[in-house]
């Protein structure tokens, strides 16, 4: 087990130092240092209420930290809203997936970044291009859905999660943040999503993963960060740790 780094490695896509966030008198976390390396899957684990979801929300612009610094891709940020973070290259896969049931797969994949053709003063959707690109995005990640013109309503939970991840990865994102991506899925669907995350890493996309599932974290991630009671207490290489050690770190028994 190594101590928590205070200095960012040169290949960090995202690095923060001394980060803290309070909601009124309630302390979400204080003095957190954290880094995610380029091209790696970085996991954040911790018990409920440890502060990991709030930390992630600060990283992607939903909340603004009260103190500390965040660097993304070598430049200082904080983002004042998720849209800015998105434009900078951080995509989030929300826990509620943020899919629109009544829209098609292709429409969801391009939601709020639709491809348009300009005709005079008018901008009309280029639906053909979006469908074609949607198919390409899905096949690149080997995601199987019946048709890109299928309404999302008719898809299974695993397929929806896959569409959500595909949307996050598909926009040329540098970093994809996932909050409990397999929490609501069955065994087979979980395996599919894990394969998808590996595929993302193969393609050089950096991933931050929040999970409760220590086995999954050890299977999927390169570096694991542990939060406990609003503090970043440890970081380990996934290959050098065991499930028991992670449990001990999370519960504070070590």
């Amino acid at each position, binding site marked *: 087990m190594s101590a928590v780094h205070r200095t960012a490695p040169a290949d960090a896509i995202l690095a923060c130092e001394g980060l803290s966030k309070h909601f009124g008198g309630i302390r979400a976390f204080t003095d957190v240092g954290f880094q995610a390396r380029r091209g790696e899957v970085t996991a954040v684990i911790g018990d409920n209420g440890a502060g990991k979801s709030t930390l992630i929300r600060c990283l992607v612009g939903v909340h603004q930290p009260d103190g500390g610094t965040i660097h993304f891709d070598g430049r200082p940020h904080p983002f004042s809203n998720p849209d800015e973070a998105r434009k900078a290259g951080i995509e989030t896969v929300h826990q509620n997936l943020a899919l629109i049931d009544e829209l098609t797969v292709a429409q969801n994949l391009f939601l709020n970044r639709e491809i348009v053709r300009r005709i005079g003063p008018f901008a009309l959707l280029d639906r053909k291009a979006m469908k074609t690109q949607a198919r390409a995005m899905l096949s690149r990640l080997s995601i199987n859905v019946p*048709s890109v013109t299928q309404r999302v309503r008719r898809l299974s939970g695993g397929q929806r999660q896959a569409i959500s991840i595909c949307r996050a990865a598909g926009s040329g994102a540098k970093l994809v943040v996932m909050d409990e991506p397999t929490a609501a899925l069955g065994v087979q669907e979980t395996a599919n999503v894990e394969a998808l995350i590996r595929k993302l890493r193969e393609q050089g996309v950096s991933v931050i993963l929040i999970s409760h599932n220590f086995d999954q974290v050890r299977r999927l991630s390169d570096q694991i960060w542990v939060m406990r009671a609003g503090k970043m207490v440890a970081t380990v290489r996934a290959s050098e740790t065991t499930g028991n050690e992670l449990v001990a770190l999370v519960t504070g028994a070590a």
Partner: protein
Amino acid sequence: MSLPTDNAPAVPRAGATEESRPSLAALLLDPSFWADWASVVGLVGLVILFGITQPVFLSVANLQALLLAAAILVVLSIGQTFVVATSGIDLSLAAAVMLGAVILGLVNAAGWGVLAACLLAVLATSAIGLLNGVLITAGRIPDFVVTLGTLSGITGLGLIISGGEPTMVGSTFLLKLASGSFGPFGYPVWVAIAAVVVAHIALYHTRFGVHLLATGGQAESAAALGIRTNRVKIAAYTISGFCAGIAAILLVARIGSAEPQINTSLLLNSVAAVVLGGVSLFGGRASILGPAIGALMLTALVNGLTLLSVSAFYQPLAVGAIVVLAALIMRYQK
């Protein structure tokens, strides 16, 4: 205009070449097919029924008159569709038509010219839509309450500025608009056709349209993806107000005067047409052709029953029965 679209209640799709397409027989056995096409099936059914029982119904003159009579309702149904697509409802629609008509009449009577009068009428009704939208989003008041409030407010405003008196509008421009025709259709029919085309493009071929459906479907998810759902809703209500203004012009042209009387059947029929058109009242699923055909169907129903000399007492009953039947069929919509 391409009829089948991603969100239109249409089953076949262009461009879905490599994807499987259900056979025609399977399609006809699928209740959701009938749900999706309810308004078309209903219209065709009515045309056949009335055509057999009363040959005058299919005469060119009657069909032209029918389309002319449907123009106002078609325009209003389009406005209502945009609002319903955001899972809202605009109860102030018929009142906005009344106010638009009154303003048109008064401005025209004041000698500003009929074009300025029409423009001001549309501006006023659009402003009402904007106000509805702002109150609903920024004020966080339910759509039902806000539009009910503006319904009453506009009614009062219309009575106040008109003094409760009808105003004659003897404009040759409006008379031409109401009675003139180009090709097979009267001008009001062309106005309605133009409204359908523009609205269809806006709904299916612009970013706004997709964002509208996303806002109506799951507003929170849409917001999480950076869609400004409040702006989208305000735009939808403004469009509804704009349509009310166009309808007010057609109305004044048709009856030759601006009256501070609200025609509640316009409001009820606009909602009925939207339901008949397969638009989900819970938002997120809409089409333009559906409600337009629904409006045609309602007009054809009254026209046919009139030609058949069915007592006026039975006509609202027939409309009500058809709307409820349509709503039942919608339950099979997938």
